[in-house]
């Protein structure tokens, strides 16, 4: 069973930005959208492993910094016509604190 871990406060992540979380399973990218939702994906693009945490966030999408694939933050799926998927993790937001299920 995976546990909820307190990772950061919402303020630690810039709106339309992201932070990297170093974990035993590798880097996790935490994103914050303009509507203050928080999403977590493994920090590897399905294309050639680019660090998604370094991309530009718009809507609920991040553009990979290496070759510009768009990845949906909600489910980790590449936006058509590209095909691929990055593993996502559950997050929750409580009283301004961000939790990650890991």
């Amino acid at each position: 069973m995976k546990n909820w871990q307190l990772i950061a406060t919402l303020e630690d992540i810039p709106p339309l930005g992201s932070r990297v979380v170093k974990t035993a399973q590798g880097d996790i990218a935490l994103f914050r959208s303009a509507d203050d939702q928080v999403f977590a994906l493994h920090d590897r693009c399905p294309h050639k492993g680019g660090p998604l945490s370094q991309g530009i966030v718009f809507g609920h999408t991040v553009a990979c910094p290496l070759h510009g694939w768009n990845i949906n933050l909600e489910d980790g799926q590449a936006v058509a016509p590209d095909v691929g998927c990055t593993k996502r993790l559950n997050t929750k937001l409580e009283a301004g604190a961000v939790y990650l299920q890991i």
Partner: protein
Amino acid sequence: MKKLKLVMVGNGMAGVRTLEELLKLAPDLYDITVFGAEPYPNYNRIMLSPVLAGEQEIEDIILNDLDWYAQHNITLHLNKKVVRIDRLNKVVHAEDGTTAEYDRLLLATGSTPFILPVPGSTLDGVIGYRDIHDTHAMIEAAKKYQHAVVIGGGLLGLEAANGLALRGMDVTVVHLMPWLMERQLDKAAADLLQASLEAKGMKFRLEAQTQALIGSELGRVSAIRFKDGTEIPADLVVMAVGIRPNTALAESAGIHCNRGIVVSDTLQTYDPAIYAVGECVSHRGTAYGLVAPLFDMGKVCANHLARMGIARYQGSVTSTKLKVTGIDLFSAGDFTGNEHTEEIVLHDAAGGVYKKLVLKEDVLIGAVMYGDTKDGSWYFQMIRDGKNVAELRDHLMFGQSHLGNTGHQGQSSAAAMPDSMEVCGCNGVCKGTVVKAIKEQGLFTLDEVRKHTKASASCGSCTGLVEQILASTVGGAYSPQAGKCKPMCGCTDLTHEAVREAIRERTLTRIPQVMQELEWRTPNGCASCRPALNYYVLCAHPRVAQDDPQSRFINERAHGNIQKDGTFSVVPRMWGGTTSAAQLRRIADVADKYAITAIKVTGGQRIDLFGIKKEDLPKVWADLDMPSGHAYAKALRTVKTCVGSEWCRFGVQDSTGLGVELEQVLWKLNSPHKVKIAVSGCPRNCAESGIKDVGIIGVDSGWEIYVAGNGGIKTEVAQFLVKVKTREEVLEYSGAFLQLYREEARYLDRTVHYVERVGLDYVKQRVIEDEACRKALYERLRYALQEEKDPWATENVNPREFAPLSI
């Protein structure tokens, strides 16, 4: 709120494209009902030719399958022809009694082939060429019969003839005029075309008038007789002599028609509740028969149906391509000319190449090309933009390829390329892959091809070739975006210029404000418009607008170049390519301390350190204690210099000294794209000033300034701007030029693209002739630079950007 009812009559390419555009703009405004007389969902009619030629199957050419209609809650009545419009009660009636009420009605009934009213025209085996039904009839006939006659030597007729010939029939094309495709080609090009089609086995009867079609006892056509009394056998006759807009339905409802349903610039008929698009309409007296203009109409019509009401359709210039594999032919605009026009002609009969350009007062108005059409879309764009080509005239005929834009291996003719040949060297995409995607995914624009195949999506040097493949695959359906009115990105319909103007005039200083005022379609833009808006806002309101790091590409946010493994590179600034023992020692120490083993001297006269982890960047900068080289930014990169008069036996000016000075004045300059400068001490030009954004060459009596050179994807030689005497003047003139570029270029245009767009004469007028303007430009530049900071300086580093979180 109750939804409005929209009914569309005619389930073809123009109508469905209009619905697609409408659904993008206002997905929930209407309950939509569609009537189609054919039993199929919307398919790609123009691909009937490849289907006939056996290159594709019907299933491949469906554009919107039944699921698409279901997903958008569209009520679809297939195989139902609408026969009456009751305008008083706003109801349409189909043949089988089905009715539908409407608030808005969209007529998109297309057209039907014109059948010559000669005796025998109703015999079996005499058909037009319009839909899947006709195509099946032709494929079946080719299995059973031998002799085919195609009446009409235009685009459609030749594509039909080619398909039938490939299916083994003996085909004769009968044409009334003295040469083929007389509406698109002049005689010289048509002769070349005819010769290549003859080589494929087709026969031709030109200037031949059909008198009658003769039938067998079974009631099927068996021969065709001409006015001169001669006859040839024919088991299948395809009439491709023209189309008639389907206006009967509209006319019966009392809607004004005149060789087409008459519409205004908003695609409205005389009844304001009824719109019409496609081949059935007559707009400003013209009825179009190619899809590109119909798509333009669809876009405007959707805008009005969505109640946005800002678009106008003002007519289209069309271009033509024949979709016969192995034949390259292109024509656009007015290619016949008259006493007020001039022609440039290249005719290589043996090589099978013919090109004619028609100019009127230095504006290109028409082009015909045969055999080598790679520049077709380039010329077409110039025709549509009405661009003045005076400056290009000398090499206009040699085309854009003259300036690059070829495939990776330098090939430039799409027709001659085998499917396996690489088109795009960056993404390794072959011609076959591009063609397949265009056909199977129903792609019509360069952007769509880029998205689906990645071809031409990176460095863009193969764009011309990809456009050519697109044009020869979809024929006249391809229309390059007119540069003048190209929107910034999918989030808006506004151009870069319109957005910049609004930012300036309405003093918009923040990106969300811009998006709100200019009614962006997306909540926070996309990865393409946000960086542009950030630059525009900062450039228009220096010291007032706030930078938005989240709208910058990672390189500019982390002040280093991201590498394929996610690490970064660090390039410290070395003024004018000069350094010192102390600096080199410090670099060596940093390399040891952070175990940096990959060190390289760049092409820009400085040193690059590779493989640095993001979290280490601030420490590396602090230890280096050198300013940022901005090697990652849309900003001033390097000022390359040569040895100059200090040491060199030929040097006549102190190029090193001037280069260092220029770099120290300009080093914090940000710009639409990167800027590179070079200063050479004499005309031997060892610093390569001839391919820089600003290139300066010392001569005995002063300095020559060159601008808009580029050494990258397409090498462009810089153009002479002015000669000045003093170093102060070099600074003022170069600075003024760069500020003009900063204020007016589209984001991601290098100086060469900007100057190409506005013309060197304009630049000279602003920077050289108008002294007050030059001084004001230079002053604005200095003002903007005054408070720029070194992003690497410890006090400017944002720790949140670099420190990772941990559990």
